[in-house]
């Protein structure tokens, strides 16, 4: 007898192959492709909880047949989606950052920093999220092949007592990050999958990468430095709470070819990330002034540091929306922000030593850890 217990339901994930798949996209590792990735050693990831599961739709038939009650509804869509929540770590989440942001330049990332450490720069792909050839400026890999494709899909598995549950072709529909005083940096990834499969998918071999399991490399709030201000004049702030979120507006549709399943989701609108800071004490009206005058260009960075490890989010162009003062016993200053793309990629607000900026992203993630693999070129 095997009963599913939450503490046993480990999760594993790997990025779908992108290299030299141009001839196979429809049947190989593309959306709903016929082949599956094999999850195994080094693919396990610690998570808190998830609502990822099979989600189908059915359509009622309200035909008038002289009967009070209708017949049973008809199955019209098979799919899977849900959120995955995790405590962030300095190591072990690089696949997830690439998947969420969408681009890691092959020609300049990672940079070797010595002593076994590497820096990765993840940019938001500002053009598309579906499987697509590399644009000219993106063809920077030393082993670039015209059949390479940008693939921002993962295969995610969960080990349940009855079977391994595999979510094929998971697209990132959005993500959010939050860090509160006394807590960890927590991420929530909104996942849209082609379908749920149940069977034997090698869960006995799903292991964590070295150093990832356990709390040693968790990212707590007190590792964080927040800076906001005009470029070149950033001010360090005391924040009790920071958060950001973005949603990729993906078209979710079916057609006569996709049948019961969604066709590959494509970006159908603009991405509008949001962020917010809660300054622990209202001690200046600077942020009220910024929310009234948008002519001053502002940028922001959030950097968590632990020894040689770093995780940073860089926002090259932000504006303060309606800053407000709370009614607490000691008033706080809530600073909501709208986020914009790099104003001029030829003269970027932030430079990252050795890294070439390709996208002109709205948010950059710069990660320093012991992972030596470019995630976009991993498979």
């Amino acid at each position, binding site marked *: 007898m095997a*009963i599913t217990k939450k503490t046993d339901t480990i999760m594993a994930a790997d990025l779908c192959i992108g290299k030299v798949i141009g001839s196979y996209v429809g049947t190989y590792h593309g959306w709903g492709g016929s082949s599956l990735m094999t999850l195994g050693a080094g693919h396990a990831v610690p998570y808190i909880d998830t609502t990822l599961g099979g989600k189908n739709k059915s359509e009622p038939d309200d035909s008038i047949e002289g009967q*009070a009650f209708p017949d049973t509804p008809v199955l019209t869509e098979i799919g899977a989606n849900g959120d995955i929540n995790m405590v962030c770590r300095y190591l072990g989440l690089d696949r997830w950052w690439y998947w969420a942001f969408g681009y890691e330049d092959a020609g300049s990332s990672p940079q070797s920093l010595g002593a076994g450490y590497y820096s990765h720069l993840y940019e938001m792909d500002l053009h598309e999220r579906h499987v697509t050839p590399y644009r000219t400026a993106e063809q920077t890999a030393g082993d670039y092949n015209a059949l390479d494709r940008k693939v921002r899909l993962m295969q995610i598995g969960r080990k349940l*007592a009855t079977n391994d549950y595999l979510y094929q072709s998971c697209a990132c529909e959005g993500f959010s990050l939050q860090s509160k005083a006394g807590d960890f940096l927590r991420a929530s990834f909104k996942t849209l999958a082609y379908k749920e499969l149940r069977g034997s998918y090698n869960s006995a071999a799903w292991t964590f990468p070295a150093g990832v399991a356990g709390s040693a490399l968790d990212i707590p709030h007190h590792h964080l430095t927040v800076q906001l201000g005009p470029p070149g004049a950033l001010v360090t702030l005391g924040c009790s709470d920071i958060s950001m979120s973005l949603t990729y507006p993906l078209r979710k549709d079916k057609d006569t070819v996709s049948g019961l399943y969604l066709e590959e989701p494509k970006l159908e609108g603009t991405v509008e990330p949001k962020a917010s800071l809660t300054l622990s004490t209202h001690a200046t009206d600077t942020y009220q002034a910024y929310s009234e005058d948008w002519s001053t260009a502002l940028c922001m960075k959030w950097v968590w540091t632990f020894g040689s490890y770093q995780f940073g989010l860089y926002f090259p162009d932000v504006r303060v929306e309606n800053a407000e003062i709370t009614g607490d016993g000691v008033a706080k200053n809530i600073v909501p922000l709208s986020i914009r793309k790099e104003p001029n990629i030829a003269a970027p607000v932030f430079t990252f030593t050795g890294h070439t900026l390709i996208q002109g992203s709205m948010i950059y993630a710069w990660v320093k850890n012991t992972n030596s693999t470019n995630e976009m070129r991993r498979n």
Partner: protein
Amino acid sequence: MAVTTKPLKKFGVVREVSAGSYLDPTTLVPVTSCDLKQSFDLIPDESLVGVCFPNAPLQGVRKCGGKIVMDVDALSSAAMLVAMTGTTASPYDLHATANNETLSITDLNEVKLNKRAGCSVSQWTITSQPNKALSASLDILGFVAESRATPTWPGTITINPGTLFLHHHLRSTGYARIGDQADALAAGDAVGLEEVVFGGNWNRKDDFDNTSQGSLQQLSGGGGRPSASLSFKISRHDSSLATQNDTVMGWRDAGTLLQMELYYYASATATLKVQIPNFRLSDADPTGDAISRIACKAGVGRNGIGASYVNSYMALNAPIRLTLVNS
């Protein structure tokens, strides 16, 4: 001085012969909560007459109704099942075309006897959970004005509450079974249920015209098509049991037509069988609890028309049938 206190309240019902004509109650019902009331919409006077404050509002239409929650027992539930299903005797099928049954509901408190005629059940659910009696929640709509009299119980109660049905009566001689429609349900289809909720919605609504300050009789389907509902939670996501492993998710993805039977056996003279002959799962997922359950929701349909059954192993057309044995 008489003061209304909850423990001294009592509720009685009787099936009306002529809708809206009050009859004295004959069945005492084990109500656990009731908020039946009469209320009036107020029509504001918004005339502009050069002063700030408006005149007093006018009395508009009268609405009667509320919710009754009661335990399901072997004896007094019969009267309620008639109003819930539109069928006058066991087996109580959700009626194929319409539910025109009305009740006279009488409740006594220390101050007044409240008489409510023309009461119909608009929607109902029955919930079965461990450590609780089977519980019915009924939304009531009435079209006759409330009548209040001296607090003296009228008529003669001939049916008092009987044996209560409990969740664990679904064991031993009783059972809970779920399966596909390839064959009749049998012992191998037994399932452990932490919770099951099923019900019917007759979708009644108030309709007003000039002939009364109250609503016209609220007919079934007046607010939309009647429907039946079912949701349940399987108590363990368990590889060793065919009805509790991933078969359930397979049914969800394949749109498999399913059937369910719940047999509450309190004694040989107190049984309630619930048959749901034809449904599909819209949701079925292992939960994120420490020990996973499987939370399921179903789309329930009728079982064919006439003798042309979708599920030939349950020869009934209703989306839900309740068979009560109390003697």
